[in-house]
C-alpha cells in the first residue's frame, strides 16, 4: 500500500511536483507516465526517502517516509533511474551487500539471491564486475537488488530502459508474476508497456496528475482510441514550440 498526500517539491523557482495525491493498493501495477521533466523521478525520489518533500507526505505500508524512514524503506524495493550500482562489485558481491543491509540471515540471503538471480536471468554474469556488464544486464542487476527481500512495495524507475525486446518481455513477465501480492509503481516512456502490464495508469504533467484510469479507459479518451494521442493532448511538450 502506497499513499501519497499533496506531495510537493520545489527546486528554486521551479515546482517539480505540485501537490500530488495518489493511493496505490496491493495488486495494482501503476504506470507512471509523463514527459521528461514532468516530476516522475522527483516523486519517486521523495517516496523512497532520497529527497525530503517541501510539503505533503508519503506513506509506505502505513510508515511515513519522513518521520519513520527506516521502517518505510524496509518494506520498499527501489530501482533508481539509471540503475546505479557499485561498478567494482560483481552481482554476487553486490546482492550479498544488499542482503546484508536488509538484515537477511546467511541462509535466507543465499536463497533470496538465487531466486532474484533466476528471475532476472543473471546467472551468466554472476561473477563479473558490474561495470563490465552491458546496459541490459546492469538494469537487471538493479531489478534483482530491488526484489531481493520480497518487498511489499516496488518502485521501478524505467525498469525496461536499455533492454532489448526479449529482455523487455522477460521483465514484463516478471512484473506480472510479482503483481498479485505487491504494490508496484513503474515509470516509463513506453506507452505500449503500460498497455501490456499496468492495471492502472496516471499521466502527470508539470507535477500534477492530468489523467488517471485503466490503460483502456485512458486510451478510449484519446481521439482515435489510442493512449499516445491522449498523452500528447494532455501534456506540454518542449518540442511543440520549436515545431510551431
Amino acid at each position: 500500500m502506497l499513499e501519497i498526500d499533496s506531495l510537493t517539491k520545489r527546486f528554486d523557482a521551479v515546482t517539480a511536483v505540485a501537490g500530488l495525491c495518489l493511493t496505490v493498493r496491493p495488486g495494482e501495477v501503476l504506470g507512471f507516465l509523463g514527459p521528461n521533466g514532468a516530476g516522475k523521478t522527483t516523486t519517486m525520489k521523495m517516496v523512497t526517502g532520497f529527497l525530503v518533500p517541501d510539503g505533503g507526505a508519503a506513506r509506505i505500508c502505513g510508515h511515513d517516509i519522513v518521520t519513520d524512514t527506516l521502517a518505510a524503506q524496509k518494506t520498499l524495493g527501489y530501482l533508481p533511474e539509471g540503475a546505479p550500482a557499485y561498478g567494482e562489485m560483481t552481482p554476487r558481491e553486490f546482492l550479498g551487500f544488499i542482503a546484508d543491509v536488509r538484515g537477511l540471515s546467511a541462509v535466507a540471503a543465499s536463497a533470496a539471491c538465487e531466486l532474484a538471480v533466476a528471475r532476472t536471468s543473471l546467472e551468466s554474469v554472476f561473477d563479473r564486475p558490474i561495470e563490465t556488464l552491458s546496459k541490459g544486464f546492469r538494469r537487471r542487476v538493479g531489478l534483482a537488488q530491488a526484489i531481493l527481500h520480497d518487498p511489499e512495495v516496488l518502485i521501478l524507475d524505467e525498469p525496461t530502459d536499455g533492454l532489448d525486446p526479449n529482455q523487455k518481455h522477460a521483465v514484463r513477465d516478471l512484473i506480472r508474476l510479482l503483481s498479485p501480492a505487491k504494490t508496484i509503481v513503474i515509470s516509463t516512456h513506453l506507452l505500449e508497456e503500460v498497455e501490456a502490464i499496468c492495471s492502472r495508469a496516471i499521466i502527470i504533467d508539470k507535477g500534477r496528475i492530468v489523467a488517471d484510469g485503466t490503460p483502456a479507459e485512458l486510451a478510449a479518451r484519446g481521439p482515435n482510441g489510442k493512449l499516445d494521442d491522449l498523452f500528447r493532448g494532455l501534456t506540454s511538450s518542449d518540442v511543440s514550440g520549436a515545431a510551431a
Partner: protein
Amino acid sequence: MNAVSAVFRREFAAYFATPIAFVFLVIFLVAMGVFTFYVGHYFDMGVADLTVFFSYHPWLYLFLMPALAMRLWAEEKRSGSIELLLTLPLPVWATVLGKFLAAWAFAGLALFLTFPVWLTTLYLGAPDNGVVLASYIGSLLMAGTYLAIGAAVSAATTNQVIAFVAAVAVCFLFTAAGAPIVMESLSGWAPAPLVEAVASFSFLTHFSAITEGVIDLRDAIFFLSLTSLFLFANMLIVESGKGG
C-alpha cells in the same frame, strides 16, 4: 551495528577491488621510508628511537589521508549509487560511521605495515617501546581526524579532485596552526588568547606531545573529539543533500 558493519565491509573491500589499495600502500610505505631515512637522516642521528619517523607523519598524512577519503562520498554522488545507498534501510549515521571506519581501518593497515622501521630500531638499539606504542596510537588517532575531515569534504562535492584539494587545504590549517609560519604571523598583532587558541588546535602540538612519550589523555581526546565533530558535520552534509 549490523548497518555499520555492512557498510564497513563493502567499503573496505572496495579499496581492494581496484589497484588503489596496492598503489596507496606502496606510496605510503615508500614515502615513510624516504622521509625517515633520507630526508630525516635517521642513521646520522645516532639515536635508536623513532622520533624522526613519527615527526613526518602529520605532513605525510596531510596528503595521504585526503587521498584515502576523497572517494568515500564524491564517488557515490558521481555514479548515482548514493541514491541506492540512501534509500536502503540504513540510518545516515551508520553509513557515515561505516565509511569512516573502513578508511580508518585501511589507514591502520598501512601504518601497521611500517613495523620494519620499528624492527630496524630494535636491531640498532633499545628504543622505549612504551613511547613507540603511544606514538603509533597517537598517529592512528591523528590519521582518523584527517580522514574524518576528508570524508566530510568528500560529502560536499561530486568531484574527487575537488574533494582531495579542499581536504588538503582544511587539513593544512589544522596541521600548521602551531607551526612557526602561523604563530609568527599572528603573534605580532593578535591578542595572546587568540594565538593560544589557534595553537591549541594544532595537530603538530598535540601529536608531538604524544610522540615525546607524554601520554596525555587530553591529546587523545583532542583527536577523538575533532574526529567526532567532522563525522557529525559529514552526517549533516549528507542529510542536507536530501533537501534537493
